[in-house]
């Protein structure tokens, strides 16, 4: 750790991992509810489990991004963080607000929660992924702006690098596009249209810039390849990401009442979206092959390469599977979407945050890399989680194909719930692989507590 203020990243990373565990537990609960419908009912109904599963994912990734920024920016800018104190205050505000929101989801019926939290003043609730009460949404904006102030002031007073520029662009974009969550027109088409400006322009737009910056930072550190080389590719990749991703938003506009040209625009541009992801994979492997040093933190390199591969498969390939309008006509909103969602979020965002944590955490704990033993345990975590995610995706894809066939393509289409019964075997298989994922996650958490001789101390 080169700057004292980087230490503030540590609580963010710990909170992120804690919430990650919570997310997976709720994933398992709802995974079981797919096949045992009344499991934990009425305490935790399916819709609540789903809301907690997805909201926790977003919140812990945000903790991860913020922690990553607090770790990276002082080092990149070669100066202490503008205000470590503000970072600490925001940490507690965000953690308490996030926890209260989840408690609200679990303890109070959703309609009651809406009433209690002033949804009447400005109705923003009740929309997928944007279920948060108004006060939580306002809280997110306040925390995000204060965080961006802190990070931007640090960059302004120090060295400006391409990595921090791309990171800042991504983080500011994240905050700006979240503002559309407050826009909730009564026209359903407009509502959905701008809803995607948060959801899609986050994950297929500005978040990819954050992903690129985090990956570039870790690659610079572990490979020792010239910064100029890595930055050049970072620019090419993010430029292509933005062009394909922004117009690619159109793949959500096929059937919501928008003009017909979106079917062409959405199909063609989103068909190009795998290209920047593929370039990121090639980029990661290329940089590691050209490495000028053998960094003792092997597992961080493994995570970085894994991010490249899994982001390409999950976001790129599984996205392409159902992105063309004529295909999507049948597959829209089926388990194929769920398959894509799982692998894309894991491959792109979960893995890149874990890459950064894997690289930074040993340094935050005063050593360049963890002991060999700890790294091996973490690698078990990597492989168990990654391989089980591949199988979760494959089982959901199989469920999706069967569902689409039974429910939409066959000459005697089945009703939704009847088709669901037919694909139950795949839901059981998914649940079992979900348990393996949890075991992988436990191994990952355990790796932080494994001792053993460390090779070097922090520089």
């Amino acid at each position, binding site marked *: 750790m080169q700057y004292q203020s980087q230490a503030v990243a540590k609580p963010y990373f710990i909170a992120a991992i804690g919430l990650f565990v919570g997310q997976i537990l709720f994933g398992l609960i709802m995974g079981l509810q797919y096949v045992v419908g009344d499991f934990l009912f009425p305490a935790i109904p399916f819709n609540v489990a789903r809301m907690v599963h997805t909201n926790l994912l977003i919140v812990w990734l945000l903790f991860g991004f913020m922690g990553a920024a607090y770790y990276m920016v002082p080092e990149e800018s070669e100066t202490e963080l503008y205000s470590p104190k503000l970072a600490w205050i925001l940490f507690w505000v965000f953690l308490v607000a996030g926890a209260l929101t989840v408690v609200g989801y679990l303890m109070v019926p959703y309609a009651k929660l809406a009433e209690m939290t002033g949804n009447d003043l400005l109705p923003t609730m009740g929309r997928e992924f944007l279920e948060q009460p108004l006060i939580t949404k306002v809280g997110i904006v306040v925390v995000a702006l204060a965080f961006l102030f802190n990070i931007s002031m640090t960059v302004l007073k120090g060295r400006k690098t391409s990595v921090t520029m791309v990171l800042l662009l991504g983080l500011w974009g994240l905050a700006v596009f979240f503002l559309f969550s407050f826009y909730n027109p009564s026209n359903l088409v407009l509502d959905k249209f701008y809803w995607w400006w948060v959801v899609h322009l986050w994950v297929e737009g500005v978040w990819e810039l954050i992903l690129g910056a985090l990956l570039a930072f870790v690659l610079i550190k572990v490979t020792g390849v010239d910064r100029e080389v890595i930055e*050049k*590719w970072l620019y*090419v990749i993010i430029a*292509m990401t933005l062009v*394909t991703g922004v117009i690619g938003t159109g793949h959500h506009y096929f059937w919501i009442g928008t003009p017909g*040209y979106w079917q*062409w625009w959405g199909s063609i541009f989103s068909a190009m979206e795998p*290209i920047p992801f593929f370039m990121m994979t090639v980029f990661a492997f290329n940089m590691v092959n050209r490495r000028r040093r053998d960094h003792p933190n092997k597992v961080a390199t493994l995570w970085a390469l894994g991010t490249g591969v899994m982001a390409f498969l999950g976001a790129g390939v599984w996205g392409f599977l159902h992105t063309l309008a004529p295909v999507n006509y049948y597959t829209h909103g089926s388990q194929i979407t769920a398959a894509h969602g799982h692998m894309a979020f894991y491959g792109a965002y979960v893995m890149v945050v874990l890459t950064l944590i894997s690289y930074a955490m040993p340094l935050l704990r005063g050593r360049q890399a963890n002991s060999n033993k700890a790294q091996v345990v973490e690698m078990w975590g990597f492989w168990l989680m990654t391989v089980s995610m591949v199988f979760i995706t494959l089982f959901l894809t199989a469920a999706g194909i069967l569902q689409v066939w039974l429910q939409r393509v066959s000459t005697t289409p089945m009703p939704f719930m009847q088709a669901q019964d037919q694909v139950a075997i795949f839901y059981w298989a998914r649940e079992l692989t979900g348990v393996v994922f949890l075991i992988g996650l436990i191994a990952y958490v355990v790796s932080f507590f494994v001792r053993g001789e460390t090779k070097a101390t922090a520089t």
Partner: protein
Amino acid sequence: MSAPTLPAINSRPPGDLAIWFVIFAELLTFGIFFLSYGFTRAHNVALFDASQQLLDRRTGAINTVLLITSSYFVVRAVAAVKADDSRAAAHWLFAAMGLGAGFILLKLNEFAHGYAAGITLSTNTFYMFYLSLTVFHFLHVVVGLLVLGIIAQKAWTGGYSAAEHTGVETGATYWHMVDMVWIVLFPLVYVIH
């Protein structure tokens, strides 16, 4: 007459390797758009032919000449910088930019006429393709002009030499791609019926 000499097979493409990735992605996108146009037209020949008649082929032809000539000027710029004449390269690049600007003006005029005539992306499938392709290409010309501007400015201040001129080649390659796309787009959308 001596046999033409072929470039060595293992020689790297001119310019920065990254630009070739960009060009590959661009051509793939345009290529898919062109194929989509072709297949859709095959099912709507009468509509496409009727709508196409309303396009201004004369301006399109002038624009083709402008872009091809500007590409030639860019070739001269690369040759000049290879001969270590950075200032001459800048002159050629400025001239190429002038022609590119001419393309922009004619195109804006064409869009203004279309807008006045009430043509939108939703008018019909032909105009959807026409507007998507031409506006998308138009934006590439704008980006290309910015690229040429940056390298022209650097060439003007002597930033390139016979030994190091990757930037000029990179910009030139991009400009040729913009030109080439138009060479396919113009006959496909404006002329062939």
